[in-house]
């Protein structure tokens, strides 16, 4: 396409019609289950502390705000206030994420189910995917993080180190420049992205669950040998569609994780962000036992449309926005 055509949408109208139809089905799906649709602020005082998430910051005369990277914190405040089951579909923003499966501004479907653990929520995620994309219907497969790595990469991710990970990639012809060192979780992410995840979900939905405790994010950690994070991800045709947690409810542990994130940001020389004190207050009031998940709606539309790139399902991707 020439430069002059830059005003045009990149998605076809057939795909945009499919997208609208899927949004309708989504509303019906949650309506039938009695899950309340909510809206929360896109601009907030607190940002995501996770060092792998880069927030857009907006400055005005009254100070700084962050465009949310997910609606997780305010939705959890609703849950702490007694909302019961809630969901929303909203635009979220992640700086520097652009590629075949990433647009810096994208649509997330996020929902929380009170009384669910991650196993029960995985089943509901499978039902939602099968409802919106009938071509991937069928019995899902459930694999622990450890089993997935053992099956596809031949290593035990709970007992490995940087040297072993580098070797697994080297044997496969994926070398990393000497100057680009990762920590163990970074190496596992690399093996996941290069070897394990691309192999998942070619017949049906595959869930990977029980992550290393060091990758817990906002999931609760189940004690054991080793302890594991009650976190899951869903894959179809090698693409990650959703990430969910049996939600951490302990305000003290949540504060420690925020502080650890900020410390890592400081070490990595990343921008510091304001941690969400209101979330910590809400957790302190008592938080219901629940599980929550975020699902990438654009990728779900890609799947339904058989699209190769995210720009095929978005009217105006970032470089045309």
């Amino acid at each position, binding site marked *: 396409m020439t430069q002059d055509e830059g005003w045009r949408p990149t998605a076809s109208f057939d795909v945009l019609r499919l997208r609208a139809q899927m949004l309708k089905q989504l509303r019906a799906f949650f309506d039938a289950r009695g899950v309340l649709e909510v809206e929360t602020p896109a601009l907030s005082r607190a940002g995501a502390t996770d060092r792998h998430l880069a927030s857009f910051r907006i400055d005005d005369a009254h100070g700084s705000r962050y465009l949310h990277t997910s609606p997780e914190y305010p939705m959890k405040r609703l849950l702490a206030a007694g909302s019961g089951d809630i969901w929303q579909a909203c635009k979220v923003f992640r700086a520097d*994420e652009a*590629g075949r499966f990433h647009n810096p501004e994208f649509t997330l479907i996020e929902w929380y189910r009170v009384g669910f653990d991650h196993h029960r929520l995985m089943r509901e995620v499978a039902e939602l995917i099968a409802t919106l994309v009938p071509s991937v219907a069928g019995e899902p497969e459930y694999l622990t993080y450890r089993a997935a790595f053992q099956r596809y990469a031949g290593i035990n991710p709970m007992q490995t180190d940087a040297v072993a990970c580098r070797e697994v990639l080297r044997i496969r012809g994926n070398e*990393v420049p000497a100057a680009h060192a990762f920590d163990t979780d970074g190496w596992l992410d690399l093996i996941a992205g*290069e070897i394990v995840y691309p192999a998942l979900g070619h017949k049906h939905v595959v869930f990977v669950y029980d992550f290393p405790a060091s990758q817990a994010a906002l999931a609760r950690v189940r004690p054991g040998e080793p302890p594991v994070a009650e976190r899951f991800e869903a894959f179809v045709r090698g693409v990650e569609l959703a990430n969910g947690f049996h939600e951490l409810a302990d305000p003290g542990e949540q504060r420690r994780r925020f502080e650890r994130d900020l410390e890592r940001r400081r070490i990595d020389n990343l921008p510091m962000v304001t941690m969400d004190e209101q979330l910590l207050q809400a957790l302190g009031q008592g938080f219901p036992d629940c599980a929550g998940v975020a699902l990438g709606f654009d990728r779900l539309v890609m799947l339904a449309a058989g699209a190769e790139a995210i720009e095929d399902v978005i009217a105006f991707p970032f470089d045309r926005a």
Partner: protein
Amino acid sequence: MASYSTSEFKAGLKIIIDGDPYNIIENEFVKPGKGQAFNRVKIRNLRTGKVLDRNMKSGETVEAADVIEMDVQYLYSDGQFWHFMNPENYEQIAADATAMGDAPQWLKGEEECKIMLWNGKPLAVTAPVFAILKVTETDPGLRGDTATGGTKPAKLETGATVRVPLFINEGELIKVDTRTATYAARAKE
């Protein structure tokens, strides 16, 4: 020194990795779930021609490779170096056997070649796509056999050997595709 961030990566960019100059062939942004983002790049080593897959941490920067390509005219070889001239300023450039690669077997003199320079030094020389060369040695052809598609080896005036159709005889000129080192057609003087 110029450098590129992984977010600027695109096909055709020349970068330095582990001390060698590379050309980016493909670039893909990959980010598993909540984890570390990285770029999956397919790159060609401009010294050796080898194609590799590499993973780089997103947000890191890599040094830009000062690589330029220009058209030059082949002059002569002194046995150790091959000498070329830049027709724009008449400057002479000498390339060694490593930079020449397979190119010498297609060169007689005065051909327009492409030379790639890294920090001003020859990295690779590419011969013209087609070379017109005389057959100096080949088995006698089978008379009348022009249709069966059989081939035989033929030695050319530059020392190169290519497979030619059976009807080609010693002393004839042929056109060779230097990219694939294959016979393309009969040629006239």
